[in-house]
């Protein structure tokens, strides 16, 4: 069963439950301790060992229910039982035929029936010779389920990628279980005139149909668990690298952005700086002084400050860059845990602050509103910097990071390099994110080369992975 378990772990990972190897090993121990016999206990126990948050517990429960469907074995049992009942009723019809044979004087037929006496139980009569047939008729549901699972593993059913492969894998699995031999047996049995053999054929045929539907269910489950997870992973990977302009066509981008933001927030949470002044930490100073005979060589200070960077974002929201701006803003405002102080400014021809919009509206609405208000007009970077300096250069201090997002295409207007330099001088760092390829910087009306000289950092940024990297750098450089 180990293989099954490993596949289950894979399915869990696909369903966004983070399972490390160490946890998987723990779960194996749990498995040995609790055993497979009590499903609800197993679910509880594995859930406690593998899913480590409320959210993960939900994913885990759904995944577990899909994966360990023990009900299928019950249905197999039911089917065999009904098949048996049918045969019993048919047998009871056999006895009158003997009497009628005697009555009609057909002694030869009657003799043959008596010399080959009908067995009292149909099970004894029908002895299948193929292993699959024996397995199915034995009514051992656990063994049947095991056989299905092992056939699934030998045919790599967990590798199923697309819907249309279901039939193919089903056939392969049936073959692996020895269906061919059984079909042959059924055929042979039907041809022979012996009533016992015909009974057997009937039994086998109904068992085969049950098996077929069980296998189909199994593949269905594999598809739901494996292919879905893989598909999701694949799609997220694509979403990470696709150009941001096209990203809107994808579903649930916001979910992905949140996920990335959460990852960053976790990484950079509680970055603390110890200061060299403030209140004396008597306890630890004293402690460090002991080896020196109580002389306090190494004073320790109590104040520790969490670094919460102040971020000002200036976004070009004209047509060419607006989609990138959407994701940058989405990203920054999803990072509220680590970046509580984000002020956003938007411009195309003139600049305005949009921080309030983000405080009042839902993320998506706020972005749409921003684009509506400021998105129309030809880009003028020079004017934007002038406006920014008028509006809030005073608020920029040595702890502030200023992020400018734009392609620096100024429509041949005044570049106002001087204003940019003023910002740079006042702030902690100035980061420029440009959605254009580096080779195009400075071509045509792009002022990027000139602006570049005044930035702490200038990066190409046109996909989610670029965006994640840029913000990671921003947080590290605090």
């Amino acid at each position: 069963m180990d293989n099954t378990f490993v596949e289950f772990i894979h399915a869990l990972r696909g369903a966004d439950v983070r399972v490390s190897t160490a946890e998987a090993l723990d779960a194996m121990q749990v498995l040995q301790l609790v055993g497979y016999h009590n499903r609800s206990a197993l679910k509880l126990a594995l859930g406690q060992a593998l899913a480590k948050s409320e959210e993960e517990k939900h994913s885990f429960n759904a995944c577990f229910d899909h994966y360990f469907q023990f009900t299928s074995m019950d249905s197999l049992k039911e089917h065999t039982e009904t098949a048996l009942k049918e045969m019993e009723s048919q047998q009871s019809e056999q006895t009158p035929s003997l009497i009628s044979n005697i009555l009609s004087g057909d002694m030869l037929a009657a003799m043959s029936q008596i010399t080959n006496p009908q067995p009292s139980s149909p099970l004894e009569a029908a002895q299948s010779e193929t292993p699959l047939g024996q397995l199915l008729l034995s009514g051992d549901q656990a063994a049947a389920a095991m056989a299905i699972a092992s056939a699934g593993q030998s045919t790599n059913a967990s590798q199923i990628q697309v819907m249309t492969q279901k039939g193919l894998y089903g056939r392969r699995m049936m073959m692996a279980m020895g269906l061919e031999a059984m079909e042959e047996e059924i055929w042979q049995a039907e041809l022979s005139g012996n009533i016992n053999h015909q009974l057997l054929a009937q039994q086998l045929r109904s068992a085969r149909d049950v098996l077929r539907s069980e296998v189909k269910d199994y593949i269905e489950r594999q598809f739901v668990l494996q292919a879905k997870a893989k598909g999701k992973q694949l799609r997220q990977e694509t979403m990470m690298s696709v150009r941001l302009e096209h990203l809107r066509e994808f579903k649930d981008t916001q979910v992905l952005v949140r996920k990335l933001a959460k990852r960053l927030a976790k990484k950079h949470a509680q970055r603390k700086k110890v200061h060299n002044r403030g209140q004396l930490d008597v306890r630890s100073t004293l402690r460090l002084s002991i080896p020196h005979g109580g002389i306090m060589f190494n004073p320790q200070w109590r104040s520790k400050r969490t670094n919460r960077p102040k971020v000002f974002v200036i976004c070009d929201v004209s047509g060419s860059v607006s989609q990138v701006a959407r994701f940058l803003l989405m990203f920054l405002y999803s990072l509220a845990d680590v970046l509580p102080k984000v002020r956003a400014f938007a411009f195309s021809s003139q600049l305005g602050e949009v921080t309030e919009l983000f405080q009042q509206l839902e993320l998506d609405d706020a972005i749409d509103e921003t684009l509506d208000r400021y998105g129309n007009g030809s880009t003028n970077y020079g004017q934007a910097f002038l406006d920014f300096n008028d509006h809030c250069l005073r608020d920029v201090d040595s702890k502030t990071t200023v992020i400018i997002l734009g392609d620096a295409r100024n429509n041949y207007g005044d570049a106002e390099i001087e204003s940019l330099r003023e910002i740079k001088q006042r702030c902690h760092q100035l980061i420029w994110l440009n959605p254009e390829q580096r080779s195009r910087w400075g071509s045509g009306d792009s002022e990027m080369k000139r602006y570049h000289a005044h930035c702490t950092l200038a990066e190409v940024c046109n996909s989610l992975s670029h965006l994640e990297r840029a913000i990671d750098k921003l947080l590290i450089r605090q």
Partner: protein
Amino acid sequence: MSQASIIENLTPESIQSGFASLGYICDESIAMAIYLAVKLNKPILVEGPPGVGKTELAKATASLVDQSLIRLQCYEGLDESKALYEWKYGKQLLYTQVLKDKLGDLLKGAHGLSESVERLHEFGDIFYSEDFLEPRPLLQALKEPNGTVLLIDEIDKSDHEFESFLLEMLSDYQISVPEIGTIKANSTPIVFLTSNNTRELSDALKRRCLHLYIPFPDIKLERKIIQSRVPEAPADLREQLVNFVHTLRDMDLKKHPAISETIDWARALVLLHANSLDAALVKNTLNLLLKHEEDISQVKQELTAVLNKNKAKR
């Protein structure tokens, strides 16, 4: 029965019934978590809304396995000197004084500096030794000869560094004191960590623990809890008050009433000789259940509707 054999013979069912006899009513998931923790020697991280009995669980476990409970309350700024060990500075200072006085006798007859230093080295270094170590809760838990239950309460309130510093303790049940070396546990303690989820804990910590989420109990379980905790409350009242609390939990409130508050309320109602809930009674005692002025006024406004709904339910 000895403690070892008590632990040896635990099963999820016996844990559940054992807890019940101690007045701690729980469902299978809690019993299973304790069972796994004991059998696999793993710490349990208990999460859930405040007041669902996370701390109580550790206490109940301690009395179930008949071991002492060592509790470490986490807060911002908690460091190893308060959680793990501290040197006995006073004694250490005295020791250096004594050493200074004795130094003359010790080095008498030594020729030259190198010989004196050699003699000094021969002299055992007891300055940093376990004699001068003041154990704090974590070290105490490791030193306990017969095992113990260690409760690290509200781990989410502590700093990040403290969390990483716990990792060694949680995975190997040992701690390193730089000046001495590694101290291993005499017998593995049963460790509970509780968190109110005010911040996300690190993956490294979560990986080392079993994870138990305790939600608010369902109506049936809560009735049982009240029955066990406030047995003098009449059955009719018990049913009504639990229903009422559950209705409150479905409402949009700042803070939902926890189990401990339900118990308090039940006790208060018993004290007031109430046999059933009526609007006036609820109005006067609502401050036991709800701890925010806005919540109280909101519920007061909808009180009759809520009470009627409950009647209809029955």
